[in-house]
């Protein structure tokens, strides 16, 4: 007997639908072709170039999609303006990480082609995540993203931390995805429909036996996602993995996985109106406040730059959660705008910071050792462009006007003020204040006069690609900090 499939959309794929997921398709074909390319010729430059071409093509296809209305592609995916914008951010991050990865890998003796494959797989996973409309595609994208990241985190065999961080990330990520899956299983078992657009009546929540499972499932689901977002109290992997993975991978971790996960979380919650549930709001509230406070406090005593920014990213996810908690049915569009703008600001800042750390690692240290606070002393006088980039990035993270980060914070504060969420606002203000206490000394260190002789290593921005990256990021954060309308228009289409 044929079991009917729970589906009520037409089963065929129209041209419009295929066009809507063209970016993801390009990446998928790119992966297949890259495999063949690796088999044909093992040269790092070739595959790096090829990956770059694939990502650029996908980006172009994606940008052309920004103006099309929402399309439901099969039951699993729904491509709308918000997901295209998020995917653009993801593709741009991957594009920025590419030359950094290339530089990083070419310093090693072996030819490392698989890295680019894993990168493309990650991007594909993220692409599936941001367009997903169904728990199955959420799961697929999530796993594609996670497993590729595990491979990338533990990529550098020679590094002393690779095994440790790789294993930590694998075990914790697998546990988290199991939690999430169990949550989905419970939700599915009670509601019978795994699509985001399913309408679940209130009576289901309050069933005598199964209602408990539904709420439990929701909690488990949120926990699994919170792990990926490095939201407290599921943040314990973040500093170690950030520190132990190669810096281009940290760049990807900090940007792509966060963007993708948050967008899908917002999609899921908005569509299913989970936020109207009391328990969910309370849990998210606790998560948000803990993240904001803990992230900032723990960063205070960090000497290692990567760990410092890991803790700061925990705090930033806390700030973003505020928007999720206070959103309501009426201002969903405004919520999307706030979230996407803040993610854009956060991405630009993180990309900038990790570019500087990576460039410093290559030029200052021999064994890709960790960059600590003492390494950036006096950077402004030795390599002004790097320092300028870092300063703008830190100001953006701290939320000072002139930068995108401030506009993002303004969005968040507006949302929270409209919703009268005073505790969240208080936590945000306290968190930002504490944040300044470690962001500003970083900037001061950049300006301090050189003291020790081994600091006189000349740092120069040699590569043309690096120059382009550094200056364009500087330009972007300044321009969009002063004229954010451009991005607003982009998001709104």
């Amino acid at each position: 007997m044929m079991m009917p499939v729970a589906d009520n959309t037409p089963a065929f794929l129209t041209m419009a639908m295929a066009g809507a997921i063209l970016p993801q398709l390009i990446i998928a074909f790119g992966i297949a072709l890259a495999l063949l390319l690796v088999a044909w010729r093992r040269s790092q430059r070739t595959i790096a170039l090829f990956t770059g071409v694939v990502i650029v093509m996908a980006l172009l296809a994606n940008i052309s999609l920004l103006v099309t209305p929402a399309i439901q592609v099969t039951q699993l995916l729904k491509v709308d303006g918000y997901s295209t914008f998020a995917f653009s951010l993801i593709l741009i991050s991957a594009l920025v990480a590419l030359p950094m990865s290339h530089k990083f890998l070419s310093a090693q003796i072996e030819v490392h082609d698989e890295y680019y494959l894993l990168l493309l797989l990650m991007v594909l996973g993220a692409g599936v995540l941001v367009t997903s409309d169904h728990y199955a595609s959420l799961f697929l994208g999530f796993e594609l993203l996670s497993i590729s990241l595990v491979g990338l985190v533990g990529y550098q065999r020679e590094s002393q931390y690779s095994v440790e961080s790789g294993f930590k990330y694998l075990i914790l990520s697998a546990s988290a995805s199991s939690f999430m899956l169990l949550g989905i299983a419970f939700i599915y078992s009670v509601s019978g429909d795994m699509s985001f657009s399913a309408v679940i009546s209130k009576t289901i929540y309050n069933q005598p036996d199964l209602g408990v499972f539904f709420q439990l499932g929701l909690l488990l689901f949120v926990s699994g996602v919170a792990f990926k977002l490095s939201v407290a109290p599921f943040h314990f992997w973040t500093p170690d993995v950030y520190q132990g993975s190669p810096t281009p991978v940290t760049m990807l971790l900090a940007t792509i996985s966060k963007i993708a996960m948050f967008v899908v979380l917002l999609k899921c919650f908005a569509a299913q109106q989970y936020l109207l549930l009391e328990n969910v709001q309370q849990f998210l509230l606790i998560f948000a406040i803990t993240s904001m406070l803990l992230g900032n406090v723990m960063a205070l005593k960090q000497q290692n730059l990567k760990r410092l920014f890991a803790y700061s990213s925990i705090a930033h996810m806390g700030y973003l959660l505020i928007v999720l908690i206070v959103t309501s049915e009426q201002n969903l569009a405004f919520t999307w705008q706030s979230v996407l703008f803040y993610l854009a600001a956060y991405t630009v800042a993180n990309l900038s910071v990790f570019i500087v750390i990576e460039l410093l690692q290559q030029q200052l240290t021999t064994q890709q050792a960790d960059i600590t606070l003492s390494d950036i002393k006096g950077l402004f006088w030795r390599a002004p462009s790097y320092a300028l980039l870092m300063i703008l990035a830190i100001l953006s993270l701290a939320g000072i006007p002139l930068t995108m980060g401030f506009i993002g914070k303004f969005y968040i504060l507006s949302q929270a003020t409209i919703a009268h969420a005073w505790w969240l606002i208080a936590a945000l203000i306290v968190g930002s204040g504490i944040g300044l206490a470690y962001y500003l000394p970083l900037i001061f260190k950049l300006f301090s006069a050189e003291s020790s002789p081994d600091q006189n290593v000349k740092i120069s921005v040699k590569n043309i690609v690096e120059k382009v990256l550094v200056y364009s990021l500087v330009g972007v954060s300044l321009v969009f900090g002063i004229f954010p309308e451009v991005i607003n228009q982009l998001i709104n289409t």
Partner: protein
Amino acid sequence: MTSIPLFHVLILSSLLFAIGFVGVVARKNTLFILMSLEVMLNAIGVAFIGAGSVWQQADGQVMFILILTLAAVEAAVGLALLIRMQKKYRSLDIDLLSQMKG
């Protein structure tokens, strides 16, 4: 054939999951940790199958196939890392992996 109430399936699944989770947390040998992860995933599979059967949909079984795939992939990656760990530390004790502090 009497049908098993969904509630019982979910309880079974939760118990299996809990066993797996305790294994992940409490075990010292990384190989056993990987095995416990598999137990967790299969527990989830049980829940999906049960749910699919209750709702008379194929979705549950489709998800189970996906989960099996995931389990295989995770095992592959996990074992690769395991081999690396064995080569480096000559042991599979998870307590050796705590160099990064702070």
